[in-house]
């Protein structure tokens, strides 16, 4: 398993990725009610570095319909503490698979409306292949491991969103292929 790539630009390059949390932006996780600015997040991902040749980002939104039913409001609940630590764990796994320079996740909780941003994943690496793959891996694992739960509201009432087998299958694709 590769260690998380630590370019000399990081002043705490001998610390573990976990030790970097809160001190440097190598790995960063935020669970928040507030909306986020993807341009600012991407700039922060690159702050103080010129080693990156590639940044891949993903933004998830509240769809106006899910499984054929209109959705006006989505309420997101989470398990404070475990949510953050599980996402850090996912970022560390990504760092073990690809030579990443930075990886960040922002995930909103609380009451969101159709069209709102829910989640942002940003990954920086020297080359695009690692950035693309790690971004997808982080998102696939986040959907299966991070303790968030969605409740949708629409004209038909409200209901908890059920976990989808497709999401488990997407995460399982990465199993047994550490060099993917």
């Amino acid at each position, binding site marked *: 398993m590769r260690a998380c790539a630590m370019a000399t630009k990081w002043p705490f390059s001998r610390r573990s990725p976990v030790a970097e949390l809160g001190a440097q932006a190598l790995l960063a996780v935020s669970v928040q009610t507030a909306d986020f600015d993807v341009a600012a997040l991407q700039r922060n991902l690159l702050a103080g570095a010129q080693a990156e040749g590639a940044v891949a980002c993903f933004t998830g939104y509240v769809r106006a319909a899910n499984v054929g039913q209109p959705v006006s409001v989505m309420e997101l609940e989470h398990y404070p503490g475990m949510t953050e630590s599980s996402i850090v764990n996912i970022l560390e796994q990504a760092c073990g698979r690809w030579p990443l320079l930075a990886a960040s996740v922002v995930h909103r909780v609380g009451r969101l409306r159709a069209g709102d941003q829910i989640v942002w994943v940003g990954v920086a690496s020297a080359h695009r292949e690692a950035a693309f793959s790690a971004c997808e891996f982080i998102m696939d694992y986040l959907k299966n491991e991070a*303790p968030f739960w*969605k409740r949708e509201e629409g004209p038909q009432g409200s209901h908890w969103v059920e976990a989808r087998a497709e999401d488990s299958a997407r995460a399982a694709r990465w199993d047994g292929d550490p060099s993917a």
Partner: protein
Amino acid sequence: MLKVLFFARIKEELACAGLELPWRETIADLDQLQAQLCNDGGTRWREVLTRPNVIRAVNQSVVTGNARLRDGDEVAFFPPVTGG
């Protein structure tokens, strides 16, 4: 003391976000704790907590199978996650 937390659908169905139980040897593992909660809570709690898709976590780490508990542990019961 054991801190027990419930989330999402489980919290709603039990009408309970969490509770604390005095530590004792009869709830010294996850299965014992779950059985105690089912006994104390009655039919509804038994029905909700024994569903096959209930996920259990100890000190904020998911546990598959049974696990030893210690005084001061935090145990959580929640449904499959649906974030992202």
